Each structure stands twice: as C-alpha cells, then as structure tokens.
C-alpha cells in the first residue's frame, strides 16, 4: 500500500513536470503587441498590423515605454488567420494580451464588422478592456505615426481615451462594450473615431487626434458624428464628465465667454403614448464655472449669470437635438430607447419591436436642460 502511494506521488510529480512546463514562455521569447490595426485585405479578407515595442538590450538601462516600435503585418481571410501568418514573419511568439488599442478601418466596418468582432471574441487573446477606435482610411497609419509626445502609439490612444473625460469629444469604448452592445442588442454600437494629423510642412504623420464617433445600425456602419453631435450624444447618454462651453459676447461673434462644464448628468424616460407614438424625455443637469470673460464693458452680475444660464440651456439643448436628429436620420438607437420602452411597457413593446427601426425616427423627443453656473471664480 505504501509502495503504491509512493508510485502515485512519483507519477503525480512526473505529470506536473511533463505537462506544466509546456505552457511557459520566457519574456525574451515573446514580442509584446501594444496596438493592432485592422484594414480591409484582398478578396474580402483582413490585413492585420501589430505595433511591437523594440526592447533595448545589452548594457543599456531598460527604457520601459520609451522604446521605439516596429510593425508586423499579416493578411488572411479573418483576424485569426492573419495573426497566425504574421507569426511566420516574427522571430518570437506574439503576446496579444497586452494590446491596449485596436484601430479598425472604416472599410472593414463597411465590409464585415460583425464577422471581425466575432473572430475577436473567439480569438480570446485580447483583454476585454482593450480600447477600440475607428479611422477613415488606413488604420495601420495610426501605428506608424511618429509622435513627439509618445514613442508607442498605444500610449497615445490610451491617452486620447482618458482625455475624453475633460474634452467631451471622445469616450472610452472597449471590446467588452462592443460585445455587450452586439449581443444584448439594447443599444447600437458607437465607436470613437481618430484622425491622423500631418506635420505643418505636410510631411510625416505626427499626431493622433480624437474626432467624434462612428455610429452603427446593427452590423452596418450608419454614419459619422462630428464634434458637436458627439457632445450631444455623450450628454444625452450620461457619459459626459467634463467639457467646455462658449457663448458669444452680447450675441456677437468674435470674443466668447468660456465655461468649464464640471458635471453633467442626464435621465431618459421613454414610453409609448396613447396614440402609439414613442415619447422620450431627456433631462440634463449641468454645473459650470466661468473661466474666461473677455467681453468689454460687461460686469458679472446675478442677472447676467441668469442670462448666461438661459443661453447655455438653449445651446446644450441644441447640441442634444442635433444628435437626436442624426440618430433619427440614420435610424440608429444609440441611447437604447427601445430597451427602455421594453422594460417599462413590455406588452406594448411586443407589438412594436419588429418595426422599431422604422418607428424610431418618428419618436417624439423632449429635451430639458437645467444649467447652473456655480462659480465665477472672482468676487463680484
């Protein structure tokens, strides 16, 4: 009995040694992929580009995220095949799990968005928190940008998403957000857009800039939302953290009064009225601080503040209405109005759900903005 126990122990140790070590990868046997670009390939395929940091070796001190990068590409009928073929060009195993951002070309989105997203889900190599961006044109251009402020474009892409918290022009959208939107179907997918800026002399690509959102309707690209519509979208969907607002001095163009929007929150109430028309009410509350008042002969008084609040209410309402106009025009329910009606009036929803895409553009929206200027930052 004791001998049998010993044999069992020896076998267990051999099983551990024999099976365990195979999964290991030393750090100097891998390439860390920082960002990935998806472009349309030949014959409906996909071209995958991976940005990999070059590691300094020898006697140099490690440079961390300050290392230069190089790009590997692979092309296949889907992302998985492209990634496998890319390995044929690489001296090391590629580690996809550290990918910070995936940039998808608009062409891919137009061709086969759902197919690529499904492959990403099955590939299971990327973190769910990987950021997703879209670009009009070649996505691989984003990875090749020689920025003065960052060595790895993945850093810049992460920085852009974080910057969206104060600009109100972009927002963090991860793979998980897209998976959830596509699987649950509560609301349509919306992916932040980026643009590549060239240097002033028209030479090399020098910067990446956040530029609005791409909106989807199902698996189809519906359209692009520029800055003002994007702000309206973020405000209405309660994803706005901070931004700036401006008002012209005495309604004239030229000098503008600037406000820092320190808080914004929204509530959406959706229902079907007696006539069978979907009715949506959006309530927005915002707090602002005065940060610039260059208008001549104008003293900040409580009356003037009240006047500014009125103007801001109107301005923000316009932002949101322009977003609503966009979404109704493209019949893309980005706020999840349908799901709200579903939850509130499930019986009525059953009757209208099949024709929701036609019904959505007829929804009656009411927007109510309540602005409060908290601080003028000077004693009156």
């Amino acid at each position, binding site marked *: 009995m004791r001998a049998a126990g010993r044999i069992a122990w020896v076998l267990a140790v051999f099983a*551990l*040694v024999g099976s*365990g*070590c195979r*999964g*290991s*990868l*030393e*750090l*100097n046997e*891998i390439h*860390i992929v*920082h960002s990935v670009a998806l472009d349309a390939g030949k014959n409906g395929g996909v071209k995958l580009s991976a940005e990999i*940091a070059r*590691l*300094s*070796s*020898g*006697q140099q001190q*490690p*440079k*961390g*995220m300050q*290392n230069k990068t190089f790009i590997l590409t692979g092309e296949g009928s889907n992302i998985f095949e492209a990634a496998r073929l890319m390995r044929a060009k690489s001296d090391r195993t590629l*580690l996809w*799990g*550290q990918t*910070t951002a995936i940039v998808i070309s608009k062409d891919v989105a137009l061709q086969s968005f759902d197919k690529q997203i499904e492959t990403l889900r099955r590939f299971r190599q990327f*973190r769910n928190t990987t950021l997703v961006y879209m670009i009009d044109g070649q996505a691989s251009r984003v990875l090749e940008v020689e920025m003065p402020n960052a060595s790895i474009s*993945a850093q810049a892409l992460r920085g852009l998403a974080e910057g969206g918290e104060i600009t109100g022009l972009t927002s963090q959208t991860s793979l998980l957000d897209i998976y959830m939107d596509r699987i649950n179907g509560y609301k349509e997918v919306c992916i932040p857009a980026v643009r590549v800026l060239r240097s002033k002399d028209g030479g090399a690509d020098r910067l990446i800039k956040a530029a609005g959102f791409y909106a989807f309707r199902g698996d189809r690209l519906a359209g692009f939302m520029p800055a003002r519509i994007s702000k309206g979208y973020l405000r209405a969907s309660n994803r706005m953290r901070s931004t700036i607002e401006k008002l012209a001095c005495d309604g004239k163009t030229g000098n503008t009064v600037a406000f820092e929007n320190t808080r914004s929150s929204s509530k959406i109430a959706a229902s079907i009225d007696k006539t069978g028309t979907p009715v949506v009410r959006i309530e927005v509350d915002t707090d602002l601080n005065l940060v610039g008042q260059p208008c001549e002969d104008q003293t900040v008084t409580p009356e003037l503040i009240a006047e500014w609040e009125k103007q801001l209410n109107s301005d923000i309402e316009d932002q949101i209405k322009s977003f609503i106009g966009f979404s109704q025009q493209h019949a893309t329910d980005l706020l999840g109005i349908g799901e709200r009606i579903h939850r509130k009036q499930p019986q009525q929803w059953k009757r209208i759900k099949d024709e929701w895409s036609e019904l959505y553009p007829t929804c009656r929206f009411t927007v109510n903005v309540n602005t409060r200027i908290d601080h003028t930052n000077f004693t009156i």
Partner: protein
Amino acid sequence: MSDRQTEFSEDLAENVRRIRECMQHTDDLIFVDRELASGKPIKIAYLKGLTDDRRLEYLLAHAREFGNGDFAFGDDGWRKSIQQGAESLAAGQALLLFADPPGAAAIDLLGVQLRNVEEPSSESTVKGPRSGFTESLTNNLALVRYYCPSPQLKIESCKIGRLSPTPLAILSVGGITNPSILKEVHRRIDEITADFIVGSNAIEEWIADHRGTMFPMVESTERPDRVVGALMDGRIAIIVQGTPFVILLPFVFLQAFQVGEDYFWNFYIGSLLRMLRIFCGLIGLLLPGFYVATVTYHHELVPTALLQSIAAAKEPVPFPAVVESFAMMFAFEIMREAGIRMPKQIGQAVSIVGALILGQAAVEAGIVSPIMVIVAALTGICTFTLPPNAMNYAIRLLQFGMTFLASLLGYVGLVAGIIGLLIYLASLRSFGIPYLGPAAPLNAQELTDVIVRRPIPWDSKRPTLFRALNPYRFRGGDK
C-alpha cells in the same frame, strides 16, 4: 554512568579511591585533608577550575567549624553514594567526605566564568526591557522570578541525560497553566533517553509532537519578559542549563509573527507592525514564485508599462526566470550564512562583495535581471522582519518549493502549494493544540487578537487556545 550505586564507607581513603575511580582518575579532581573541631578527619573534594576560588578558600579555611554533617546539611545536600558524590563534583559542588556517619555533604561552589545579563542580540528591542537570559540556569530562574514575583510561579527541576545529567527547570503558573498539558510535558521529558543534552533544541526535538516537521513546534526566546508573558497566558517554559534559549510551549503558527515589543508600543503601532510581519511572511514565502509564475505564464496580468520594463531588463539574460530566481535566492542564502558565521570585522566585506559582485556586476554582465535582484533582496529582507526562530528558516526553505511549483504550473502551482501547505499545517499539533489555531479551527475573536494587538485594558481574556484554568486576566476590562 552506571545505575548501580555504591554507598560511602567509613574508610575515607577507600572513598577517595572510589571517587577517583568513578571520575576516571581525572587530573583536575583535588582532595584536601582537614580536621573538624572534634578532631575527626574529613576530606574536601572539588574539581579545580569549576569552583569559585574565594568561596573555596573560605571553605578550606573554616572547615574546622563544620559539625558532623548530619546536622549541618539537610537531605538535599547529603550524598550517600559514590556516584551521587561524583555527579555533585561534576556539577561544580565541593564534597565534604565524612567517615562518621559515612557520606558526603555537597556545597555549591560553582564558579564558572559566565556572561553577564546582556541584551539578547537575536531579539533586540527598541522600547522593551533589555535583559536577556544567560547560560546559567540559576541566573535565568532568578530573572524570571524578578520579572514575575508571584508566589504562584512554580519551578520544577529535573536532570536529563544518562551520561551527563543536565539540569533543567519547568516553569508554570499555578491556577493558570492547564495541569493536563503540564503533565504531558513531564511525561515527554521523562521519556527522553538521551545520554546527554546540549542546548534547548535537543529537548525541543525530543518532546515535539511531530519530529519530522520543519516547522517549530515550540517557541524559543532569550527574553525573560516574553517568558513571563507566555506563562501568564497559560503556557509552560523550559529552561535548560547551558543555553540562553528558553523553550515556550505549546506554540501555534501565528505566534511566529508576534514579538514582545508589540506590547511596548501604542496598540496602533503594535498592530500595524504585527500585520506588517504577516505581510512580510507572505512575501517571503510567495514573492519569488509569484514573480516566476507571472513572467513565464501570466504575462497578461502585468500592467503593460511594467511588463515592458521587466521584458527590457530581462532581454539580455540567457537563463529562464526560474533558474535566475533559484540562483539569486541561493546566493542570498549563502551571503546570509556567511554573514552569520564570519567574524564581525569581516562581515562588512561580505556585504560589499554581496552587493557589488552578486548584485550590480551580475546585472551588468547580463546574468540576472535587475528585477530579479529586487525580488531576491525584497524577499530576503522580508524574512528578516520575522522573529528569529525556526519559522523564519521554514519560510526560507519553502520559498524554493513554491518557486519550483510556480515554474511548473504558474499561479495554479502556487495555489496548489499554498493549499498543500495549509492542509499540512492544519494537521500539526503542538501538545495537542491545533497548530493553525485560532484560524483553524476558527475562533474569529481570538484570530483578530492574534493579528491585531488590542489595547491592554481591553485584553481581559486569556487565549482559550492554551486552555488556561483561569480564562480572565482581570475582570471588567473587556468592553
């Protein structure tokens, strides 16, 4: 030594011959002839060098003033057999050999040069008392009595060792110490059949519940205040002649993270230090394994910027992370051992050689990565925060095993190692007390007390773990 006892005869010369024979005709055995006031001859025997010269001189000068011995010395000092007399001589006593009645009176003249009471170097303290035990049993008992002047303190003496009987004392507190544990201690000590005992560790190994374990089954300390604290919790102390390390028992795993000084600081500081030690124990056990598992199996779990730095540092290193890790841990152990064994004057040289050659130069030569040096150094330093007992060594030994498991199966291996270790620890007992108590079996309140040092006025209850007879230290404070 033979168990057969030969009684003293009325012939002093014969007795001298027998004692010489019993003591292997040793050259340092001295016999001096004296006469009592009554004119009867006596012989005074002692071992040269083992007795205190001044007291011996006094004895020799005033030998005439002794009576016949039967009235001057009680039973405790009267030796009836040659063997008993020889044992007394070996223990540093002088023997006064009487012909009528036949026998010998033993007078304690032990005069070996011993250390003074000093601060124990292995358990130094910032704020606590500075006195530590010495090699003298009598002195150590006096120190305990000094710190605990209680009539309830009970000292039971015995001798262990067939060939070389070493005196030891078992200390307990009447009304607090559980008699069944005390009885068990006596039983186990009585069962020791060794011919001689050196130091308290030998006693520890003889009386431990599990002789094959690397974990300490009893606690060892040089500090009288810690001994008194343990006695007051219902534990038992064993002091052995010739060693400053006193055994405290029973002992449970979590006590390895406590030091007496916790009670000399404000309870916030005491608690934080205690938690820090537990945290350091975990780091000491798991950090190298965690590092190896992370950089060989779980790259995705490391923040990108950190992984990039680690990867860049690892780039020129030709060895797998596990080999690197073992090499650095091994090098650290060598340096630590060398630091302990080397004379203090050269110790500094070891540090310089260790830091420069094994650290900086190894990194510059691309043999190990700087991150591994940091991991090895942090691991080593963390184990230094634990009180210097065998737990420290057990953790250092186990970190190799954990690293090996992590190199095989990543975090799964690490978790398997932790589970295996916990199962093993839960199976241990120290004098019948579960070794993982009060965590397993769980006693939430006492577990909190082990991790957090409560304010002394709130700490009215004794730990139930040691089954003290009186469960309260004092009444009315536990609020």
